[in-house]
């Protein structure tokens, strides 16, 4: 079915064009000149994508044709925005990010090469779960852990800093998918209806309680509402797909809200975050500064935005940022400020379409583990986008997760390319079986 590969090839052309247009606009604005440098950047990008495309064509000929171009588009938007920031701050984040993009694609190829039969993941599920938990705990360990704005998300090993939560999310989804594949019956068999609500049998509530406990534990230990919400949402989506019982989802949500409320009352850092979310004006120059600047910058964007490289990211005449952490937390704000409501909706549209394709992969898959794996990976990806976009637009408390593939950050890029590799592996098998009529 090379028709789908041809569509993938075709879709990469507008992606490279968008990167070229973005760079050209930043050049035109900053250096007041149109050089053909933007064209060469676009061509480099296209060449890298083409190499990946050829690799996919050989190894996964039946995989979904749109996932890779959309992921490449998100990376392209991130590169343009980071380059635009570099032009004012003098950093070289865009070059670093481009290197991470290439590393990410190499890792993507390695994962596809070694996990052709991804069901081996099921065999090592407890090891994978342990690795995931160890990764989550690492930021709290002495010497290597690092606290950023009160949340424990980073790890520093000498010169290398990374966010283990990004990789941990993959481990946990793989574990939950394989665990629920095997134990889903236990949750459904013997379920009884009480007052019209289907309750799982008490003795099998165990796993539910353990995951709930883990999410609450994360909230206390890592103090990050965003990641804890992301994990729990993925878990609820998996439980729903595995059992088809909406009541489990509602019970889970009620448990999460109850737990989060108690923690809000008791853990000071979480209390601060939530209070700032509810009323950022209580400390406009301090704790509320970031979210307030984010909202003003987005308002400046209007319908079509101020244009590439035209919004204010530094306080004029100084080196201090007007938009704190514009390269990570607030990159969505920056996109809204420069491309307006339409640009921002376009970005959300890409995430929605990625999620739609991901769930399509889950629908097409033929065995339980593949279905659950694709569902979990898609949910965790989409929810991460929701958590950070919701955070900067003040829908939920702002927390420090990255906007997948757009924000600056090596661990985020690497983890998301592993995620893409797994999704394409599931998709390739499902579509091949559908084509051959298994």
């Amino acid at each position, binding site marked *: 079915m090379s028709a789908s590969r041809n*569509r993938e090839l075709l*879709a990469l052309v*507008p*992606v490279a*064009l*968008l990167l070229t*247009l*973005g760079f050209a*606009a930043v050049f*035109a*604005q900053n250096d*007041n*000149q*149109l050089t053909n440098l933007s064209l060469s950047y676009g061509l480099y990008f296209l060449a890298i994508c083409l190499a990946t495309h050829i690799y996919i064509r050989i190894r996964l000929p039946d995989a979904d044709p*749109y996932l890779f*171009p*959309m992921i490449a*588009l998100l990376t392209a938007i991130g590169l343009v925005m980071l380059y635009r920031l570099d032009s004012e701050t003098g950093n070289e984040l865009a070059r670093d990010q481009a290197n991470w993009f290439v590393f990410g694609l190499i890792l993507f190829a390695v994962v596809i090469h070694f996990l052709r039969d991804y069901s081996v993941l099921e065999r090592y599920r407890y090891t994978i779960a342990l690795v995931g938990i160890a990764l989550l705990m690492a930021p709290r360990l002495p010497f290597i852990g690092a606290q950023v704005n009160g949340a424990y998300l980073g790890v520093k090993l000498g010169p290398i800093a990374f966010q283990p939560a990004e990789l941990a999310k993959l481990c946990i989804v793989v574990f939950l998918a394989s665990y629920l*594949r095997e134990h*889903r*019956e236990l949750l*459904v*068999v013997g379920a009884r209806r009480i007052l019209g609500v289907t309750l799982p049998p008490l003795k099998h509530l165990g796993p539910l309680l353990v995951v709930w406990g883990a999410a609450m534990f994360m909230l206390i230990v890592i103090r990050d509402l965003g990641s804890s919400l992301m994990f729990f949402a993925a878990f609820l989506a998996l439980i*729903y*797909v*595995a*059992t*088809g019982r909406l009541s489990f989802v509602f019970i889970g949500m009620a448990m999460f809200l109850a737990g989060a409320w108690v923690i809000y009352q008791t853990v000071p850092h979480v209390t601060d975050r939530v209070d700032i979310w509810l009323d950022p004006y209580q400390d406009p120059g301090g704790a509320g500064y970031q979210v307030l600047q984010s909202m003003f910058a987005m308002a400046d964007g209007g319908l*079509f*935005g101020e*244009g*590439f*490289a*035209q919004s204010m990211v530094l306080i004029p005449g100084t080196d201090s940022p007007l938009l704190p952490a514009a390269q990570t937390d607030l990159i969505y704000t920056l996109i809204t400020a*420069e*491309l307006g409501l*339409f*640009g921002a909706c*376009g970005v959300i*549209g*890409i995430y929605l*379409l990625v999620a*739609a*394709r991901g769930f*399509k992969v*889950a*629908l*097409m*898959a*033929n*065995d*339980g*583990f*593949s*279905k*659950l794996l694709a*569902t979990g990976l898609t949910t965790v990806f989409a929810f991460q986008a929701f958590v950070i976009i919701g955070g900067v637009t003040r829908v939920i408390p702002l927390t420090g997760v990255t906007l997948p593939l757009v924000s600056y950050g090596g661990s985020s890029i690497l983890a998301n390319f592993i995620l893409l590799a797994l999704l394409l592996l599931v998709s390739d098998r499902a579509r091949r079986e*559908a084509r051959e*009529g*298994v």
Partner: protein
Amino acid sequence: MDYEPISVALKFAFLAVLYLFLLWIANSARKDLKRNRGGDADGDATLGAMPAGGYDAWLVVVRGGGIEAGTRFDVFGGVTLGRSADADVAFTDRYASGLHARLYPRGDRYFLEDMNSTNGTLLDGAACNSEVEVRDGSMIEIGDTAFRFELDRP
């Protein structure tokens, strides 16, 4: 030369290409759905809002197997039946093989396949050689154990 109009034009060009790209992908995704709905036997994407396992289906123990009659096993993305602890539906029956048979969905239908068992599998009294479609109410017999298949198709 004034570059202001050029950067404005580039911004709108960027937005236009972005939206055309999204529309194109959304449109082909929609066509994909339609094509699958149109009488394709596999009908993989027709499950729509259903949980990803397809239609809810169960195996209900009728007799034997060392399991209380009336016990229900959920069939999701395929199950294996047999005496081995590795089987998804594990039961004790001296005529059953370790992994005796498997039951799996394809599109909105379910199929039974005997996995080269020693003593064979009966579907509604007939020997099951290759894959056979199972319907709502079908009886699956393995040795002294009997299951009734229930399909919850709306």
